[in-house]
């Protein structure tokens, strides 16, 4: 693009390719910075607690450790190196996807995560899909329609204030113990997925629905909606084709909240329904004080969050050119 073309594009409100690339680049650096910070904090926590790291590894096996054995373990974990060396090694290993060794399970943290990840991804992705669909359905059907609007927003308020485990327990009591139509726990089959998925989806969906409805109601007051209506367009079509498209951007903004809710909720949901997954892994690491495992999972969670936010930012830059020129 020529300089004059670029100027014209800027005046017309269209961002240049350079501006878009610059914005994405800035976001990328910020994301890497957050991950570096998370890794550093994690290293500090590891180092502060490393004094008993070697001891806890051996003591976990019920032995009375000799000095040679402890030194051996310290060498294994690289605890005899100078601090900056350990830090650089740690960062280097992270870059290779190595999150460290579990004290308790004596396997790589990254391996433990990859073994459990599939189950959690299945749960989280299906829950996110259900949450978004429920939110869209509730918002489109009830925006600016009394009395449905107040009923739906009351239900949403209740669901969003209810702790995740309570929602799960209510679902269990109704569907597993009273109606006896769905299994209580386990990982096998799609039927076992339904209740955990709903447990995770309902509180997130409720918050999304509230945000989406208020956005939708704002859009429905815009002049272009009136124009669409005056052309004789049916209400449903106006809502879905014109208003929803604009309001959906708001859902994209909420992805950070959704990811946080899914990851935190997975710990509770997997515990309640006795499902395997990353959440279970986290809880068992916390109860056994497996610090490298806990911190590895936290760094992993930060990684997921940063990647999702980066994708959201890039999507945004591509759909909404105003963000770059502003």
């Amino acid at each position, binding site marked *: 693009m020529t300089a004059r073309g670029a100027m014209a594009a800027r005046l017309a409100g269209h961002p240049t390719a350079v501006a878009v690339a610059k914005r994405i680049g800035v976001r990328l650096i910020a994301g890497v910075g957050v991950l570096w*910070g998370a890794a550093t904090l994690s290293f500090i*926590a590891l180092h502060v607690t490393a004094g008993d790291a070697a001891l806890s590894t051996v003591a976990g096996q019920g032995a009375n450790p000799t000095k040679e054995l402890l030194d051996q373990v310290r060498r294994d974990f690289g605890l005899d190196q100078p601090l900056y060396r350990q830090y650089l090694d740690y960062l280097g290993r992270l870059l290779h996807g190595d999150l460290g060794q579990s004290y308790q399970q004596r396997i790589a943290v990254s391996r433990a995560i990859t073994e459990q990840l599939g189950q959690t991804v299945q749960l989280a992705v299906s829950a996110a899909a259900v949450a978004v669909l429920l939110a869209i359905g509730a918002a489109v059907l009830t925006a600016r329609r009394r009395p449905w609007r107040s009923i739906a927003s009351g239900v949403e308020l209740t669901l969003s204030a209810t702790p995740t485990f*309570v929602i799960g327990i209510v679902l269990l*009591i109704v569907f597993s113990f009273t109606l006896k139509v769905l299994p*209580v726990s386990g990982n096998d089959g799609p039927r076992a997925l339904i209740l955990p998925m709903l447990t995770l989806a309902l509180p997130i969906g409720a918050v999304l629905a509230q945000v989406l409805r208020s956005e939708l109601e704002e859009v429905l007051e815009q002049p272009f909606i009136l124009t669409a209506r005056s052309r004789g367009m049916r209400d449903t079509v106006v809502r879905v084709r014109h208003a929803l498209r604009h309001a959906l951007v708001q859902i994209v903004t909420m992805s950070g909240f959704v990811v946080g809710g899914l990851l935190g909720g997975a710990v509770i949901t997997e515990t309640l329904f006795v499902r395997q997954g990353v959440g279970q892994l986290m809880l068992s690491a916390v109860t056994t004080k497996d610090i490298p495992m*806990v911190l590895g999972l936290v760094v992993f969670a930060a990684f997921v969050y940063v990647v999702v936010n980066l994708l959201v930012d890039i999507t945004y830059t591509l759909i909404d050119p105003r963000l770059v020129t502003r």
Partner: protein
Amino acid sequence: MSAFTATAAVLPRTSRIRLRPGLILAGLFVAVVVAAALVPQLLAPHDPLAIGAEGAFLPSGGGHLLGTDESGRDVLSRMVYGARPSLVMGLGATAIAVTGGTLLGLAAGLGSRLTESLIMRLIDVVLSVPELLLALVVITLAGAGSTNAMFAVAFASIPSYARIVRAQTHIVRRSTFVEAATGLGIRRSTVIWRHVLPNAIRPVLVLSTIGVGTAISAGAALSFLGLGAEPPAAEWGDMLSNGLQYISNDWFLVAVPSVAITLTVLSITVLGRELRRRSEGRST
């Protein structure tokens, strides 16, 4: 203060007190919970830890309005006594989080460029991890128990409070009354203490009402995971995870604490939202 009255004059609708039934119910319920937390012995019919002679898993009725649990303890009494640890968790964690958040936010908003960017980047890092996972990290490092759980919940919510205070500090410190106070030669610490802090903290105090509900919920979640209160104590989250073992025979044991937690969090949220709505000067 004058800014507030001016807004009220422009928007007369907001100054009119409008009480909806939901709001009254929420207020009443919070009052009951507070009463139960202050004087449980007046409301509970039995000792929450006493093992009754009548037996375990009694249905509701008779001497036990909500029946008895697996050890023959009175469920209603345990529910009443559970109010105090929950409120202590909610209020304590929120107080710690608001204090920490305000200090960090003020330091970021008033400090040098370097201080500000250091604090804000640190907050970005901490915010990239879900709150529950942060609380779990604190518990891993500090150990389980109800006090540690309170600090864990508080720690996890410090960053969001700090962000609000810092944003608010930026607005306040550019305002004319701060400029006037500085121009009058009032000492910097006095300006911060008397003018910046009270104005920067107001939105946080409003939001912290909702935060109390969230903290109660988070604390109950930690107890539910077995990382909060110690088992014999009457605590809702613990009653819940304990009752879960008997859910197939007697789901009532799980339903009672579930209802108690949910109604408490919901009522506090309803009151907090109303407070926020009024402080923002909107009536819808």
